[in-house]
């Protein structure tokens, strides 16, 4: 599959699961099958609010076999002025939303002997996408969902289809009553841990696992990836005498290309070295794997496909 840009989706159905949780079913606007979305995958939605455009990532809860719709569950955070408030209050069935093709940075291991799943609050969402596959494969797994008292009911309903005969537990006493070290210490060799939830829970799980001697490759924290963009800045192409605005979600290379100038590039991922341009003035935030540590410290070159300016202005010899 070669992705041809964003996927337009129609909001097919919005289901209220609890006072703060809604499940959205999104179907392909122009019909046909959506790209296969694996367990653990997320989609980045472009939400066009009344005064600004937001890009928010949501884990898919629909199984990979489901090619006719993507499903997400969104919690409405009381103080939110961002995506969750917009989805809860500003979106109706029939509306159209754009999504980037699914990305999976939280995949299931193919060689685990057992899967230990720990969710905190709305962090249950990627775990819900794992369960149909784990059940279908007869894989050995254990799931612990940490919950506030008021959410126990909704999590029970979401997990009920998978619960018979399985080790699935909901811990309604919150994080304080949850024996993380006890659960991690009694797992058999070959177990993989997957944890999704608030940052402190994921960090605690990772550090507890490390202290108990778990190999790092067997501990997986949910991730939507590093931010691709950054603060906007001005790039000055000295030889051409042109000033370019590089936006928050744009790379320097894309900003140069948007002016119609063909800049050198090849891999577009910071590996090949083709897009290297000399820097005359300004500080570079290096994000590539090509320049050596010495070259990065010298601040004399920038790889335009991934790196940005740390300063407000970057003058390039191009």
């Amino acid at each position, binding site marked *: *599959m*070669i*992705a041809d840009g964003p996927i337009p989706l129609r909001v097919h159905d919005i289901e209220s699961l609890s006072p703060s949780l809604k499940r959205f079913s999104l179907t392909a606007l122009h019909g046909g099958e959506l*790209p*296969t*979305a*694996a*367990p*653990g*995958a997320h989609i980045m939605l472009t939400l066009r609010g009344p005064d600004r455009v937001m890009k928010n990532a949501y884990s898919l809860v629909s199984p*990979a*076999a489901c090619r006719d719709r993507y499903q997400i569950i969104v919690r409405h955070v009381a103080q939110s002025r961002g995506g969750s408030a917009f989805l809860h209050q500003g979106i109706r069935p029939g509306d159209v939303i754009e999504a980037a*093709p*699914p*990305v*999976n940075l939280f*995949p*299931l*291991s*193919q*060689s685990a002997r057992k899967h230990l799943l720990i969710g905190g609050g709305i962090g249950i969402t990627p775990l819900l996408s794992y369960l149909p*596959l784990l059940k279908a494969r007869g894989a050995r797994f254990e799931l612990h969902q940490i919950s506030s008292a008021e959410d126990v009911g909704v999590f029970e309903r979401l997990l009920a289809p998978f619960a018979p005969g399985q080790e699935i537990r909901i811990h309604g006493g919150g994080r304080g009553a949850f024996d993380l070290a006890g659960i991690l210490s009694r797992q058999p060799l070959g177990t993989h841990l997957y944890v999704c939830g608030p940052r402190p829970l994921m960090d605690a799980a990772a550090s507890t696992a490390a202290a108990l001697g778990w*190999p*790092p*490759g067997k501990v997986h924290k949910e991730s939507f990836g590093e931010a691709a963009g950054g603060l906007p800045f001005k790039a000055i192409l000295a030889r051409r005498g042109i000033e370019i605005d590089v936006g928050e979600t744009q790379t320097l290379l894309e900003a140069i290309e948007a002016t119609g100038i063909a800049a050198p590039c*090849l*891999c*577009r*991922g*910071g*590996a*090949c*070295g083709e897009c290297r341009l000399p820097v005359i003035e300004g500080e570079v935030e290096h994000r590539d*794997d*090509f320049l050596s540590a010495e070259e990065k410290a010298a601040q004399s070159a920038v790889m335009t496909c991934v790196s940005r300016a740390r300063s407000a202005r970057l003058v390039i010899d191009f």
Partner: protein
Amino acid sequence: MTLQFKPNETFRSDFAYGKSDADLLRFPFPFPEDAYMYSVNIEPHVRGGPTAAFAHVFDIDEHYVAECRERALVLAEDPKRCQVLPHMEMAEWDTLELIMESLAADYPDHFSLTKAGDLWTWVNRPLGIQQSFTFGEAHTLPYGPFEYITRQAQGDFTLQDQRDDNLYVDGGMVTTQADWSLEFNIGMTFHEWHGPVPLAHEKGVFDRALKYLLRLQYGRPVRRLNWTITINPRLDTSPENYPVWGPDRTTVTSENVGEKVHLRVELQTLFRLPRSNAILFGIRCYLASVADLARVPKWRRRLHRVLRDLHPEIQAYKGLPRYRQMVLDHLAPFDDGAPTSPGIQSDLDAL
């Protein structure tokens, strides 16, 4: 698009193989400039490129039917050319889905795929195959899903599992290879299976390539070209069969060099697979004789210059020393010293 296949071509014994004019002009000539050195020459695999070979997700050409028959012959002699480790089962189905959906979408005259839930029906008209099966249930296919679909595809394929920040070659269909062995390499890490390549490790090429590939995203495949030289249009130059093809190198003479010596190009593609998070690595092999390449003015000038100035360690790694001088003597009269355009395109509309 309807292709005219050449089902009677052979890649062994009598080597009944030839290129039509159109097939030569779509050849993915591997040298973008007049000199060659290893680099991370990876770019996004978008639809379209400098020749028609880049137009589709998986390229099918006039040699398709004959290449599939050659693959079946190799597998009949040596079934271990296709191996997949047990934990790669999801990656097998991912591969089948990707190849079937891509071929059906890109070549609707030749392939079709219809689905009724998990019940799929696959039609491959060039090979005369119609197969109904249940997606996810291997016993409904005559071979495992990876072997089933790669028997119907041109070029080799390997499956890489991603774990512990590395890529492990944990499966493959390898019958058209440039002297490497799946049986020997299966289970190896990225650096282990690239171990024999000279110069590139020291340049950090594999460190950077691995980091790049670990980040490879679903829906954003990438590609690169690799090359070597093969005597005769032989697809199976495997270590297992070295006694069969190794002696070919001694048969090159100044009279037959143009027809015997072939530039072998691999259009390599890498796809992140959705369910398994594995990477599918396609190694699509193209062969063109020196005589064929000499019909394209830009390519004959550039091939002469690249081979003339090639680093001695790369010459040795690619097995050139025994006959390189004969190739140079053959090409030198065609190289008038004129400049060549950047990039690999032929600069010709017709021959």
